[in-house]
């Protein structure tokens, strides 16, 4: 009996020592009970120094776990992070529905403009379907240029598997040329440095030391797009990616690789100032190639000799244009303002008809999405431009307006 008492007492003392040791090693807990979940989480014990990720996702409301996953009550790093979604990036497309989805968040209906995840998953940026179809057609693996395969199976497209291709070139294509889509394994080099999924465009690229910037934004600068675009070319001759060899030192030369003509507005503005959300993120439908989804032309903003650009007057507080202007407030937009609109009905909410200039030849004011810079411009209509109304591709405008580099 006495022997047993000694053992029990010793074990209790040992347990007490263990508990006290663990408590000594545990930092002072910082708890948070987000409004959305009502469940306590201790992530801020270690991550209190992280900045708010965006105005739309305050930590007091969302907390961390609803987006990132992880063990809410753990304070030991490995355990706390063990069930995180997508590692440091919950917007990876393989987990994005669990992280960013929900009918009140980013996978709601098109009518509520919240179908972002469905649109992105079917976009060419995610499927890479156009490039896959064209290369398979070029090497005789399919009879036409219709998209049949995607990086991941989606909406009737089967997953592209290079190992099942007969042509060695297509196998090499699978190995060497799938580094641009939203789920891609990135090429090595800081110029290619970006996240995957939504954060490929909406979060700053990780720093060169591997640390990241905790931020989501719709003010997407051209440099973000350039982590994929304008970095070089894929060659079908050797089925390799060839990085651009010049080392541009200014925006004029950095913006586009030196193989094409372009106009001043094509480099003064950022990519997202011309290319719409449907072009960049998809519109929910599958397309065979980039040309099918990319529909913005010079005339979208500038009109033609015989017509002004399309405009639209905002009538209701619930309209998409006002939502977008709220998220990226580079413009003070209100009901009654007249903005430009694309032929597909997308509001160019950051380009407004200047009220004091409502006359025969109007003037428009564009606020750049990334910097908020205000730029005025006039339409082609009423000008001395020689542009023919039936010649509307950019190459015709470049004949007179291409900039020297």
């Amino acid at each position, binding site marked *: 009996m006495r022997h047993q008492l000694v053992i029990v007492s010793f074990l209790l003392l*040992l347990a007490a020592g263990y508990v006290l040791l663990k408590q000594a090693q545990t930092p002072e807990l910082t708890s948070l009970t987000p409004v959305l979940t009502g469940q306590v989480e201790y992530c801020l014990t270690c991550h209190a120094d992280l900045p708010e990720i965006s105005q739309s996702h305050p930590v007091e409301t969302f907390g961390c776990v609803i987006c990132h996953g992880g063990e809410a*009550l753990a304070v030991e790093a490995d355990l706390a992070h063990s069930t995180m979604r997508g590692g440091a990036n919950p917007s990876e497309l393989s987990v994005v529905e669990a992280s960013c989805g929900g009918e009140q968040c980013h996978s709601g209906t098109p009518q509520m403009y919240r179908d972002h995840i469905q649109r992105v998953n079917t976009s060419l940026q995610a499927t890479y379907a156009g490039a896959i179809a064209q290369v398979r057609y070029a090497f005789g693996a399919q009879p036409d240029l219709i998209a049949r395969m995607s990086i991941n199976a989606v909406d009737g497209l089967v997953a592209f598997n290079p190992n099942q291709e007969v042509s060695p070139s297509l196998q090499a294509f699978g190995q060497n040329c799938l580094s641009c889509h939203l789920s891609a394994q990135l090429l090595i080099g800081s110029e290619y440095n970006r996240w995957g999924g939504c954060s490929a465009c909406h979060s700053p690229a990780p720093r060169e030391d591997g640390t990241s910037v905790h931020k989501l934004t719709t003010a997407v600068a051209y440099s973000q797009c350039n982590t994929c675009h304008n970095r070089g070319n894929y060659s079908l001759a050797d089925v390799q990616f060839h990085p651009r060899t010049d080392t541009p030192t200014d925006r004029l030369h950095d913006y586009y690789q030196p193989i094409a003509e372009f106009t001043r507005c094509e480099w003064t503005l950022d990519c997202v100032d011309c290319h719409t959300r449907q072009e960049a993120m998809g519109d929910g439908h599958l397309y065979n190639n980039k040309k099918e989804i990319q529909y913005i032309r010079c005339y979208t903003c500038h009109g033609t000799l015989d017509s002004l650009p399309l405009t639209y007057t905002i009538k209701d507080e*619930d309209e998409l244009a006002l939502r977008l202007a709220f*998220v990226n407030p580079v413009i003070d937009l209100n009901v009654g303002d007249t903005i430009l609109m694309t032929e597909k009905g997308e509001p160019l909410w950051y380009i407004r008809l200047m009220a004091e200039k409502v006359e025969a030849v109007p003037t428009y004011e564009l606020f750049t999405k990334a910097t908020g810079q205000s730029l005025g411009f006039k339409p082609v209509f009423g000008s001395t431009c020689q542009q023919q109304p039936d010649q509307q591709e950019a190459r015709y405008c470049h004949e007179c307006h291409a900039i020297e580099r």
Partner: protein
Amino acid sequence: MLKGSLAGSALIGLGVLGRFLGFQSEANPPGQYDLGPSTDYPQGSRIQVPEAQVIVIHSDLGYIALSLVCPHLGCEVQVTGDGFACPCHGSRFQADGSLHNGPASSSLTSLRIEESAEGHLILYHQ
């Protein structure tokens, strides 16, 4: 001497273990909240109580408590010149809490409020 050491060890061990096992991560928020004397809320006033995330409106109809938690995703709405606005996603509400524009799809929640026998306003969250 040995008995005393054993008893002491056991008590220390049990005490620490009891504290460890009895750990409660977070107390539940109170179901009711004492907003203070009703005389602090004179007729015609609209007084915010930040710690309760509520605004108390004393109108001709009596006391009305509007939750300042946006019914869309739970951000705290801000009082503006003509009502309320959600800083997160842009929903706006009229001065009486009714929905002006989305993305919220409903008005601000009206919470139960009563005057106690001691003359204090009591807010009920549930």
